[in-house]
């Protein structure tokens, strides 16, 4: 994975700690290998290759993730969409180019989970459509890796996959983990808050990971799959939820919504959050 990842566990001895963390890392690698859109042998690549062709049967694990994504798509009124990745072709964050609306419209015809036929276990994408598991894949891996450690007997530790943190259990003395929230306008590593997370997971979505500025306007990598344009409602949204996959999905969806509807969505999901809007205003619950 192209981000900072760590496994932290308390164990009786180094051998146990090594054994547990190796097992956790192996589970993360398994999921990455299976779902990375960059890997030739991945299921994601196979699904995308089959786009426009006959329905393709998928395994049960993939079916679970597709069910989850379908659910999120419905709950977020289409803001969370596994097919939105093709929009990145129009938005070149290295070249700092704002695309023409015509180019976006062309790509938008290839975006939309409603255009996908998903009847578990059969999946059929329209021609030239693509999916990726951004927003849930990494988080799912964190949940699973933590479960692997817990199954081996680990009680205290956490899995951190690029800022998406799944807690195995609190510190050995029972103290909760203090997880820092990056200042969305500060240097890398500058934090604005710590959240205590004894159990469960925390995930953050921010507009600062990739962006460019053009004519005084900021264009972030957060693209609304319904319009094709970057959204600038939030600088960052951190969500604490029982599962990393839920925290990650909630953060992703909230980022794409205006303040009022994002807060309503988070409240409805019953999660804790710290959200910083476009003006630096903080909302926490």
């Amino acid at each position, binding site marked *: 994975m192209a981000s900072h990842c760590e496994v932290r566990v308390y164990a009786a001895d180094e051998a146990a700690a090594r054994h547990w963390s190796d097992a956790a890392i192996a589970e993360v690698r398994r999921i990455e290998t299976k779902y990375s859109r960059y890997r030739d042998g991945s299921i994601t690549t196979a699904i995308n290759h089959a786009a426009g062709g006959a329905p393709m049967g998928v395994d049960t694990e993939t079916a*679970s993730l597709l069910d989850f994504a379908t659910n999120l798509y419905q709950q977020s009124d289409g803001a969370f969409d596994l097919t939105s990745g093709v929009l990145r072709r129009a938005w070149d964050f290295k070249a700092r180019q704002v695309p023409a609306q015509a180019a976006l419209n062309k790509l938008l015809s290839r975006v939309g989970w409603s255009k996908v036929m998903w009847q578990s276990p059969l999946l059929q994408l329209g021609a030239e459509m693509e999916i990726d598991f951004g927003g849930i894949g990494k988080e799912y891996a964190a949940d699973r890796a933590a*479960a692997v450690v817990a199954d081996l007997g680990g*009680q205290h530790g956490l899995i951190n996959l690029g800022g998406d943190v799944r807690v195995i259990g609190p510190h050995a003395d029972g103290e909760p983990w203090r997880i820092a929230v990056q200042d969305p306008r500060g240097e890398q590593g500058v934090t604005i808050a*710590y959240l205590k997370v004894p159990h469960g997971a925390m995930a953050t979505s921010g507009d600062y990971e990739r962006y460019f500025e053009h004519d005084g306007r900021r264009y972030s990598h957060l693209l609304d799959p319904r319009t094709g344009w970057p959204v600038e409602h939030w600088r960052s949204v951190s969500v604490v939820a029982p*599962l990393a996959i839920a925290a990650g999905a909630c953060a992703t969806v909230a980022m794409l919504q205006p303040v009022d509807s994002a807060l309503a969505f988070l409240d409805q999901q*019953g999660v804790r959050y710290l959200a910083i809007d476009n003006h630096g205003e903080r909302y926490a619950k």
Partner: protein
Amino acid sequence: MKKSNSSILAAALALPGIISTAQAQVTVPNATLIQFKYLYYRDYQDSGNRITVNSPALYLLAPISDSWVFEIGAVYDNVSGASPYYHSVLSGASGQGIKDGRSQGDLTVTKYFGRTAISARAAYSTEDDYKSISGGLTLRHATPDQNTTFTIGAGYSSDEVSPSDGPVFTRTKTTIDGIVGITQVLGRNDTAQLNFYYAQQRGYLTDPYKALFGVDQRPDHRDQYAAVIRWNHYFDGLKASLRSSYRYYHDDWEISANTVTFEWAQELPYGFTLTPSVRYSTQSAAYFYYDPVYDPVAGRPFPPGYFSNPNGFYSADQRLSAFGAISPGLKIAKSFVGGWSVDAKAEYYEQRADWRLGGEGSPGLEDFKAQLYQFGVSKKF
């Protein structure tokens, strides 16, 4: 200790005689009472100890005048140990350490107007990251012959949990509850009582410290109903009282519970009273309790069906499972001349899925056990 995780302890303390059964009469107490109690409680499963509670409590009842009575209570709970109850059979790991000290103070003021008494109660409870305020009003009224007493009361409590730095992640829970009841003296040796309870909880009903490795998503409201019928009979020849009660409980989480309790208070020579007791309880599971079986594909920590219903309610809390529980106890008390009395009490609790009546118990859970010891000394002036 947090209110939300003390249900078994609370159930143990709810034995008639510990929390006083509503008096059959409305009369002004004529003596000042000072009482000290020390409670030790621990629960455990075969895989290890769970929670240990040490709790000293002080209580003062003081009639100030012919018609005013003050009661003051102070409790300190020291809780340590591991979080219990969550699918311990599968976790391969038991609890997470917790350490907490809770202090609670409460004040009750009662004003008597002849056969009518109005009590106002306020309580405050606090620990590191938790605080609770509560208050309530109770009205009791007796008929002229003092054979029938009506009770009506209402209470409110507000709990705040802040499981993070700063005020920002504070979560609240409010409870409104009410009681109506009637106590009837049926003769020289018999008293019967019927009480109805209602409680409405709103807000954050998940215990943030209890969700072990799994998913705990609960509704943010809970309506609870209970009816309790009690009957006390005194056997002249045996110099003993039989105190029996039956409690029916139902809530909108679809837990229904039935509890029967019997206490035999035997008077003995030299001011001793020996009280053996037994309680049996059986309950159905909350509709969102899931057995220790995880998603067949993704496995732990995903509950079955999670991917197609991530917003559903899920809990692996053993207290929300279907089970039966038996709790025998023994109490010995001695009164001395001069108003002193001492008592000691031991109680054992065991909860098993296959002890449930009227349905299957939740499978795959380890039996849950608890012991409770209490020592008390009091003095009347």
